[in-house]
């Protein structure tokens, strides 16, 4: 890695390129939005979508890191994340349908069997 020029603020674009920090911050914010969505939404489908958003944010960070470090691994892992996300959606929606069949509702507030 070349030596860092301390005068160069990593937050300012240089060489016509977007700095890595922007991607990371965007990724962090998207992730947070997804997190808050998971926590405040009560419709399980929307919660799922928020989880997808979080995964996307992580993917963005991964790919950005891979690009800026010159490592293809970031994209590779992103592929796996997508595959896992697809599997999760498939199973999750299956569960939702199953719950709906038995309860006529999928309101998460009604699913509190874990209460002690």
């Amino acid at each position, binding site marked *: 890695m070349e030596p860092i020029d301390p005068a160069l603020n990593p937050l300012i674009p240089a060489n016509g390129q977007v700095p890595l920090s922007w991607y990371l911050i965007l990724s962090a914010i998207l992730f947070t939005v997804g*997190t808050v969505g*998971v*926590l405040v939404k*009560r419709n399980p489908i929307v*919660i799922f979508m928020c989880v997808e958003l979080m995964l996307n944010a992580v993917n963005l960070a991964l790919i950005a890191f891979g690009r800026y470090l010159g490592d293809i691994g970031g994209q590779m892992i992103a592929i796996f994340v997508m595959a896992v996300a697809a599997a999760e959606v498939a199973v999750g929606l299956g569960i939702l349908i199953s719950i709906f069949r038995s309860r006529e509702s999928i309101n*998460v*507030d009604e*699913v*509190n*069997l*874990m*209460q*002690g």
Partner: protein
Amino acid sequence: MEPTAHEIVNPLLWLIPAFPLIGYLLIAFLGAGVTRSPKPVIGADPHGHGHAHGEDAQGKTEVTAALGADDAEEAHHVDKGTHAPENLAHHDTGHGHDDHGHHEAQTSPAGTKLIGGLATLMVLLSFVLSVMVFFQVAAGGGHAGEGVGATLDVARIFSPSFTWMTVPAMAGLPDLDISFRLAVDPLTALMLLVVTGIGTLIHLYSTGYMAQENGYARYFGYLNLFIFFMLLLIMGSNFLVMFVGWEGVGLASYLLIGYYYEKRSAGDASKKAFIVNRVGDFAFLIALFLIYKYFGTFEMFGENGVLTRAKAGDWPLEYLGTGLAAVSFLVPLLMFIGATGKSAQIPLYVWLPDAMEGPTPVSALIHAATMVTAGVFMVCRSHALFMASPEAMKIVAIVGLMTALLAATIGLVQNDIKKVLAYSTVSQLGYMFLGAGVGAFSMAMFHVTTHAFFKALLFLGSGSVIHAMHHEQDMRKMGDLAKKIRTTYLTMFIGTLAIAGIPFFAGFFSKDEILLNAFAGPEFNGLGSPALWFVGWVIAGMTPFYMWRMMGKTFKGEARYSPEFAKTIHESPPSMTFPLIVLAALSVVGGFLNPAALAAFGVHGDFLHTLEHFLGSTTNWREQANLPLTVGEKAHQTELLLVLASIAMAVVASLLAASIYYRRASGNLLPEARKQGMPVWRFLYNKWGVDDLYIDVFVKGGKRLSNWLWRFFDVRVIDGTVNGIAGGVAGLANSLKGWQSGYVRNYALSMLVGVIVVVVGCLIAALRAFAR
């Protein structure tokens, strides 16, 4: 210095304690099945124990049962002829054969014969072996040379040893490598003969005495167990084996005192014996710890043995520094406290009179002849340790004398025939300790031996009386029994002569020797003093008095029971009278083991000191075997004077007591009412108030302490802690309950909080690393 001992290894030694142990195990596993049978075919119902012990035991039982059936037929025939009166008597008292109580299986006659025979046979085998070993010891030892200056060579036979336990070195102490080994030297050989010989007689006696009792097998099992532990005690070649036996005889004693466990007093007495003994055992145990700390071994004999080194004055100074005197005082003192527990000395004697709740043969064997002498044996065995501290020796002598006095005075007023004998035993044990305390260890052992003869005789005789009186022990309800149970009377008469110190009976020689040694102060090459002698002499007058009082009250005077009852009184069966006769014979001749007192009358010869020579260095602390206690013409005159004084005291007290109690029809010296009015009588009758004192101090104090512990420590501290923790947890759980809402999204929120914490933590850590 320890003379070189001939050391012989003899594997047969293992068999001596093994036989009673085998007897115990056989009886323990098979006894219940063999004795429980309402039908002639014994052992036909093996289910009772088959479940518990598996197929093997069941198979054995059937074999044994078959043997027993054969035996039973024969035995029954004999029984019919000789035991008929006895059986009749027992029917009167309600010991019916058909009484299938819920408490314990009714015994079958054939089964009892088998069990009793087996138990007796086992002890008899031990006795035969003991005799063989005794002769081996006697042949191997002996003293080289005659007269003054003879060396004290003793033979010592060891069993092969095996490693019992190994504790690696720690805290500056050497490796603790304890071997399990038995050893027989003259001292042990003497005890072996006493224990197994009298044990055999008392087993034999018990087959008759206990014939109608429930739990017959239990009784003989425990009796064999006792013999086993007693043999371990006297044969152990190191202090730990001895301690195992020491504790074991305590256990057997506890079990046998509580034999009639349905009686509350018996249960209490057994507990009292056990607990009081614990106190002594505790002291003994500490003495053992000290021995290990300062000698680094428990082994008694051999080059590094504790006794060898103690005798050579080789107290390990490197451990002791300047504390030699203190430790060499503490070890014997603690051992002596242990001995006061087992041998019923002040302050721990209180259990022995209560121990008379056990069956009378038990009283004879354990609480008169053998176990209670274990303390004396232990002191004599460890005399090398005791001799290192004159203070400890003085304590032994004085405590012994005090106990003898105390017990003798209490014995003067007792009404229970066994209580009289119990206090007499305590008193005689006191004599033995007096002897040990003045350095006359061989005389203490001599007295142990003769006392075993005549006290076992007296106890067995009293058992015979009680048997004849259908379990009546109160002498006030006896009287005029001499003609009805003649053998018993005559044998007990001999026993009384022996204990009273009438010349040429067993007790005379041993007691006289002890008194002589007690008198002999430094000027006579002894450790005693005339004061000790005087008190002992007074007690020697009380002994015949209470003994003849007992005899008179029991056998003479008018019959204080109904004529109908008198018709049921019969002499005991031969199995009971035979031991009486044997013991009576021994009481007559036993003194001639060591008739040293005859020297005062001008008799000379080596035979005067047979036992002393035989015991040799195992009890004699003087460097030469024959170094006389008294030296010079003046000493001989003194000796003669003392012997005459003893004889006079014994004869006068005997005549006085006999003239009172043999004549009075009521058997009382004074009317009951007048006695009650006498403070002295009340004081003695209340046993000097010692029991009350113990109850006030220890029992009530213990209760108060326990109460306090209960109210404060248990309720407040322990329960408080436990409940507090439980309450705290419950409260915490209550307050945390809300966190478990059951909503997954709620849990996800806590995950978010956790993530924030982790990220912040990482950030802070990274920034700090960066700043460095």
